[in-house]
């Protein structure tokens, strides 16, 4: 009798652990997308910045990068992207308070931050070492094609990028399809 109970018990313990684990993961996942500081300023950020490109999650970059970004809008990667002074202040407030090093960030956002050298002020998310590592196997032609254009166009392949979800299961590369590592 004992011999039978033991495997059942071990099995039950295993199941319990598995449940606890998946719970933990989904919590982390929820936190990573939901906790926003100064959330009332988010619509302004999204409206102004997504007139030209996706409003990247502020958690992608550290505070020093956002500060420099908002101070150099007159030459924003070769484009005049200047905005109203008051709006600019509010947007910087939103970006810095949600920056990767301003609060606890999870998952990929954390890996992005950890990979950035402390003495560097990165201006392009696509130049962050962890970003480069994650995209190193993507053939250049998939990025250069007209449906994508450049790495700045997250949504072209990451279908849920707008909600901050960059999971592999939601990748769909135009004219190629799903991407499995």
């Amino acid at each position, binding site marked *: 009798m004992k011999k039978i109970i033991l495997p059942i018990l071990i099995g039950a313990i295993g199941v319990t652990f598995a449940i606890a684990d998946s719970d933990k993961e989904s919590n982390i996942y929820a936190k990573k997308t939901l906790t926003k500081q100064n959330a009332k300023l988010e619509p302004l950020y999204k409206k102004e910045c997504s007139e030209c490109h996706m409003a990247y999650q502020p958690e992608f970059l550290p505070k020093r990068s956002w500060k420099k970004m908002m101070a150099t809008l007159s030459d924003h990667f*070769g484009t005049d992207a*200047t905005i109203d002074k008051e709006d600019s202040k509010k947007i910087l407030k939103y970006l810095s308070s949600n920056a990767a090093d301003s609060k606890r960030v999870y998952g990929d956002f954390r890996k992005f931050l950890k990979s950035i050298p402390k003495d560097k002020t990165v201006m392009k998310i696509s130049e962050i070492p962890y970003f480069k590592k994650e995209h190193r196997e993507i053939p250049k032609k998939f990025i250069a094609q*007209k449906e994508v254009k450049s790495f700045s166009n997250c949504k072209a392949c990451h279908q849920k990028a707008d909600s901050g979800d960059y999971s592999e299961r939601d990748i769909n590369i135009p004219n190629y399809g799903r991407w499995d590592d």
Partner: protein
Amino acid sequence: MKKIILVTVVPIFISAAPIDGFLQQLEAQAKKENLNFSGFSAKRGEQIFTSKHIGKRGKKISCTSCHTGDLKATGENIFTGKKIKPLSPKANPKRLQNLKKVKKWLRRNFKDVYKREGTAQEKGDVLLYILKN
């Protein structure tokens, strides 16, 4: 006499669209900058809108590169791939309603294509071209 003028002038300003007020401002400025100025021209506006220049990032572009040659059509930012709703208020009634937005984009887009801000006359010409098409 004063009373009559007041009564007739005020309603015109109230009923006018915000863009008309802005055009009047531009007109006043254009007169100061150009003594021969005799009103905005949609034809000159079209020329400004469709002619190509070495613009941002050294690329030869015109306004139509992103907005297309049809003001009622949806365009696309050739640098980022972002879709741009039609410029013509006939196709997109929200267009030219928000002056803050109008001023911001005139400033930015002149710099994109011409690498300088437009003059009051140029801005008025382009706006008239957009309004008429």
